[in-house]
């Protein structure tokens, strides 16, 4: 779905933000790109859909090479949700906003209508609202509905939960996770919230100063304290607790697993007595 082949990127007359990066994301994966601020996450997400072009190497997405394909063509397959919905929203009603992307991408009018109404329904939005007067959480939902309405194959989320409270955040993430599960939508989520990553992502790319430090299943990466600390990150709370407890807790990852293990231990003891 998305592949970086020896990609480097640098702004004019500065050391490279990305020295040499290669990775591949398959269709249907939910991948988190984790790293602290300044690790190059935004650059990578913008390289992924052709907003930026690599200084050297190649990025292919949905079968397109970003160097030789127009951004508008890529936009039909790759959606991008920005951190701040206010940068995207520019239409007077929610309905116009949701249909805007499809309109500029040249979808047939009837299809636009049908998909817009479907997206409004899915995201519980009222098409007649003025997007500017809605709350931040609702604006983020409007922005999401708008980028997903055209049924892209890959969606890039750029720190999607900044400025949202936990309730709004889970509402949005649950929608995305559902699309990933049920429709095989591929997700690349740029994020530094390890709890969120643990809850949703199946695989994590750990990034520091434009270099990939680690790439693996979330469960495995979450247990690698050394790797995460190199990227100035920490494991989520329960994996971290398991690490602190040491031997015997290597396989514990969630609240339920921790409780189950402790119950088993208690049961064993009682059995011995």
């Amino acid at each position: 779905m998305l592949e970086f082949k020896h990609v480097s990127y640098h702004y004019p007359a500065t050391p490279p933000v990305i020295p040499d990066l290669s990775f591949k994301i398959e269709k249907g994966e939910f991948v988190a790109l984790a790293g602290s601020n300044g690790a190059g996450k935004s650059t990578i997400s913008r390289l992924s859909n052709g907003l930026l072009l690599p200084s050297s190497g190649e990025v292919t997405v949905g079968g397109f090479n970003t160097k030789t394909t127009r951004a508008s063509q890529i936009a039909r397959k790759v959606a991008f949700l920005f951190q701040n919905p206010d940068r995207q929203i520019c239409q007077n009603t929610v309905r116009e906003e949701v249909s805007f992307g499809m309109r500029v991408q040249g979808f047939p009018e009837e299809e636009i209508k049908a998909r817009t109404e479907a997206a409004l329904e899915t995201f519980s939005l009222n098409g007649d609202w003025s997007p500017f007067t809605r709350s931040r959480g609702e604006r983020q939902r409007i922005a999401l509905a708008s980028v997903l309405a055209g049924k892209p194959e890959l969606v890039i989320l750029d720190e999607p939960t900044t400025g949202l409270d936990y309730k709004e955040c889970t509402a949005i993430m649950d929608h995305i996770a559902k699309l990933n599960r049920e429709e095989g939508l591929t997700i690349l989520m740029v994020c530094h919230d390890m709890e969120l990553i643990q809850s949703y992502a199946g695989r994590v790319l750990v990034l520091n100063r434009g270099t990939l430090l680690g790439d693996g299943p979330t469960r495995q990466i979450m247990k690698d304290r050394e790797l995460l600390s190199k990227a100035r990150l920490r494991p989520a709370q329960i994996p971290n607790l398991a690490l602190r407890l040491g031997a015997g807790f290597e396989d514990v990852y969630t609240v339920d697993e921790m409780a189950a293990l402790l119950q088993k231990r208690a049961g064993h003891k009682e059995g011995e007595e």
Partner: protein
Amino acid sequence: MNLLQYQPGNSFLHRLNPITKLAAAFLYGAACIISGNLFLVTALIILMILIAATAGLGGRALRLTRNLLILGALMFIIQLFFVRSGDPLLVTGGFVWVTTGGLVSALLLSLRVVAAMLPLMLLFAITEISDLCGALVKKLHVPYRYAFIVTTAFRFVPLFTSEFHDIEDAQRARGVEYDTRNIVKKVQLVAPLFVPLLTSSLRKVDAGAISAEVRGFNLRTYNSGYQQYPFHLADGAAVVLLVALIVVSAVL
């Protein structure tokens, strides 16, 4: 854009009082405009580049000169066809297109534009806007309110630029193509972007105003500033030199 950005340094030029720098830039420009001598104006451009080089800004001065020459060339062409004095130079079918007087005055005008603008633009490279405004308030008692508006405007330029780029990116990611050559279409595409830009700008300006207000903006007087901007011998010398330059260019 970054041709107007402040470049920190500790050269002779950097260390001059901000007011001296401002005055010097204007005086130098005035000398170029007063002069009717093509060679002197050309020499002043070259001299300005050399002066800039002493502050490590030679490269920037050259680039600025190049950009200003484009503007100059435009004015050259307009002036060339509008001034009709002296002998005819280019005649086709009995119609006089260009005259010698037109050529000289066009050349002079375009070089003057370059020579007079160059020092003003280099001023921003060696002066922090906040220092310039601070000195104007402290020494010339310019009302702080105006100085604050100017510094804020300058400070917001890069903020707005990056905001605009982000907004444009968000739309490009949805498939809007801004690289069209059709100017009408381009306007149609860019116009809606001003809605989010305006919304976010107003929000930022209001937040800035609140932050200034609660930190006692309204209590400020011209004497509040902590930074001192003393005049030194070098400042006097610079002004004397520039006045001399004006005299020279008026005479030549």
